[in-house]
């Protein structure tokens, strides 16, 4: 199963439309979590809001995650050690307030955590690649160092 997600804040029709088109070439189920879009999918099952536990369950069951370049999406895919393709939102198309998703995508790709598609053609090639593997792993432990450092340093202020 491929789990597609665009987060909980803003619609992302350009992406969902591309996914819907690519879906005709894919031989496994696709579930897309969408948000307030106007585009109606023909080939993909969509769901609106997902509770965090439902969201995590789909993350766990999926073979592949395809999403916007939101950190919630990226961190969740990494946590479940799934390969993830991200498709950044562009501010010039009204898909976000600014282009931080483009920068996040580039940096996360440089650091070796995610596959990135910047256009529909790259998205199609990556989704149709059946051998896409999870990349670098997250450290499994939540950090005690970071929060300890923060508590110590604020306690001194």
């Amino acid at each position: 199963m491929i789990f597609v997600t665009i987060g909980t804040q803003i619609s992302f029709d350009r992406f969902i439309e591309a996914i819907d088109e690519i879906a005709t070439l894919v031989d496994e189920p696709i579930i897309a979590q969408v948000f307030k879009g106007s585009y109606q999918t023909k080939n993909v099952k969509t769901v609106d809001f997902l509770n965090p536990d439902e969201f995590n369950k789909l993350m766990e069951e999926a073979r592949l995650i395809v999403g916007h370049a939101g950190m919630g999406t990226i961190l969740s895919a990494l946590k479940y050690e799934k390969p993830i393709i991200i498709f950044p939102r562009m501010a010039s198309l009204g898909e976000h307030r600014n282009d931080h998703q483009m920068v996040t995508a580039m940096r996360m790709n440089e650091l070796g955590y995610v596959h990135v598609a910047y256009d529909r053609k790259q998205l199609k090639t990556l989704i149709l690649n059946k051998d896409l593997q999870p990349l670098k792993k997250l450290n499994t432990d939540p950090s005690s160092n970071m929060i300890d450092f923060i508590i110590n340093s604020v306690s001194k202020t």
Partner: protein
Amino acid sequence: MENKVKLLAVASIGGHWIQLLRIINPNNAEVSVTYLSTHPKCEVMVEGQKFYTISDFSRWNFYKLIPAFFRALKIIQKERPNIVVSTGAAPGLVVLLAAKFLGKKTVWIDSIANVQHLSLSGNIASKFVNQTFTQWESLKTPKILYAGNVLEQ
């Protein structure tokens, strides 16, 4: 430990919340944590721990920050945290403001999504909180600290 540090940890649903959960370590015996988010369903991810919600808002429906501010005051007065920490977004900023107003120590941890510069909320927070953290070493300044990030740790 008799004098446990009481932490109020605040984040909006989505990436901010997921980052907060990776940073806060509930198993630390010297810290007790209360969580605050913008959606009741976030509670399933911190089961068995104290959890509150405030209403969500953004720059598009700013008027909602007034009731959120008063609700935050109430929660802070009840829980009496030593430190209030937020990973964003705008609702976290309002909670930090309420915490500051009540004389609590306040910390802003900017989202790792802000690679090139601090977020708008982070910039505002840095004007009044005790400490502001970035998750990118390249953005560190004498005033904006770096203590690692949710990826590496």
